[in-house]
């Protein structure tokens, strides 16, 4: 498949490149390939490239002529199979203790699945990071077991803890900082998903993969104190999805 994307002006100084309107790895592969091609080809003309599920926005520097840039993009040929996107798989330790997993019980009752099974189903897949949004470092993850899919809560919580791992609809994600939110909370990770002081402020990037690993409360505390002392190294390996 070498779909020609729809390329449109996006606001005063941006372009939106979009593909068929669906959430799938297939479509998203095109988004990542175009992101890579745009960054590689036009780095001196762009300020930001923002990928999402089936589209990406390219924001331009002020001096760049929008019309001419759109023409250049239309001439660009991008093959998603040839693009070597280097991805990593990051292991995210999660404590599913009910002190953290505030909605495990409710989810178990609503689904008719034991808490034990919910945790097994949640830790089984290798999730793909589609993109980051909503909050700095918040990953939109694809690959949730359809049996765990559950609507957002009817009323949002005023404060969800930093590190909360949660399910909203058919998606699962991690809150990088305390925030109001309506997702169902399964557990908590001690990892820093977002650190503005770091050279690379987010733990994961679009196109990366995440694997959840179950840990006990004791391990949670141990990792948290190692992180505080700077002696914890995140489990990360090169991954070819």
């Amino acid at each position, binding site marked *: 498949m070498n779909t020609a994307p729809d390329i449109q002006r996006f606001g005063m100084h941006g372009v939106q490149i979009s593909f068929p*309107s669906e959430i799938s790895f297939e479509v998203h592969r095109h988004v990542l390939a175009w992101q890579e091609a745009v960054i590689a080809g036009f780095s001196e003309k762009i300020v930001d490239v923002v990928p999402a599920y089936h589209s990406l*926005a390219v924001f331009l520097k002020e001096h760049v002529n929008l019309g001419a840039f759109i023409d250049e993009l239309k001439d660009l040929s991008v093959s998603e199979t040839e693009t070597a996107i280097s991805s990593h798989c990051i292991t995210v330790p999660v404590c599913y203790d009910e002190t953290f997993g505030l909605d495990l019980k409710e989810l178990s009752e609503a689904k008719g699945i034991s808490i034990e099974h919910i945790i097994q189903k949640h830790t089984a897949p290798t999730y793909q990071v589609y993109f980051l949004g909503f909050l700095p470092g918040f990953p939109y993850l694809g690959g949730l077991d359809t049996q765990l899919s559950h609507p957002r809560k009817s009323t949002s919580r005023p404060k969800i803890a930093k590190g909360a791992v949660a399910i909203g609809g058919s998606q699962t994600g991690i809150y990088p*900082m305390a925030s109001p939110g309506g997702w169902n909370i399964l557990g908590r990770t001690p990892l820093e998903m*977002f650190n503005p002081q770091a050279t690379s402020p987010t733990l994961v990037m679009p196109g990366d993969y995440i694997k959840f690993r179950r840990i006990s409360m004791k391990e949670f505390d141990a990792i948290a104190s190692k992180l505080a002392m700077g002696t914890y190294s995140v489990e990360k390996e090169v991954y070819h999805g």
Partner: protein
Amino acid sequence: MVEVLSGGMHTTIQDMGRFGYRAQGVPVSGVMDRFSARLSNKLLGNAEGAAVMEITHIGPVLRFTQPTLIAITGAGFSPTCNDVEIPLNTRVLVAADAVLKFGLPNYGLRAYMAVLGGFQTEYIMGSYSFYEGVTQKTSLTSGDVLPILAIPLAKEKTTASVKIDRTVFENRYLEVLKGAEFDQLSKSFQEKLVRTSAVVSSKSNRMAYLLEGFQGIKASEIITAPVQPGTVQLMPSGHCAVLMRDAQTTGGYARILQLTEGAINILAQKRAGDQVEFYLKE
């Protein structure tokens, strides 16, 4: 240095924004009204991106521990220096130990104060702009101390000033482009959008302005896609959310319109209860 004696309602340090991190979910931030902020820096001969103070509705009380030049632009506050009124849109010399007050604005909502050389506060991820989770501070509170440059001041009289066309603050018309999902609206909804006199809700803030009064207009939600400052989203409630500088980077509501840069600046000066109308740029 500038000491904060009282923080005011929502006083922050901002520059032209934080770029290069939107793919990581980090908002652009930066001054809400770029026109006024640019002017404050220009009056002092600062670089365009020098960090300024954004003052919202209720101004702070500040004490200068060193002499410097300042320029205040934007909303119609009545600032005083040691209880003597000082002009807006003018370069003003403040002495060491001077106490600056702002009071309340009689037009507009946000003022900008530039200091010579710009505020030298925390610079992180390429910007001085306050944003929760990125900068240590999210708004100024009493006791804060803001470093500024010690620049020898020339003896000459400092009189640079500009006349401001106040109609910018009275203008209710917001110039818009069609948004990515505009064509999905029915013809009658499209017409209603630009003929409605909408009211600014009190829930408006640096993330988004909520506009009420478009009853009956509806659009389906979309697969989460990129958004930017000025994007007008149609909410399930039928209200419009106009995303502002602190907006998140992606969103799942239909993007029906897009404000031009000038329209964002105009909206940034509106208060709860003010009326606005969209008009399509041809």
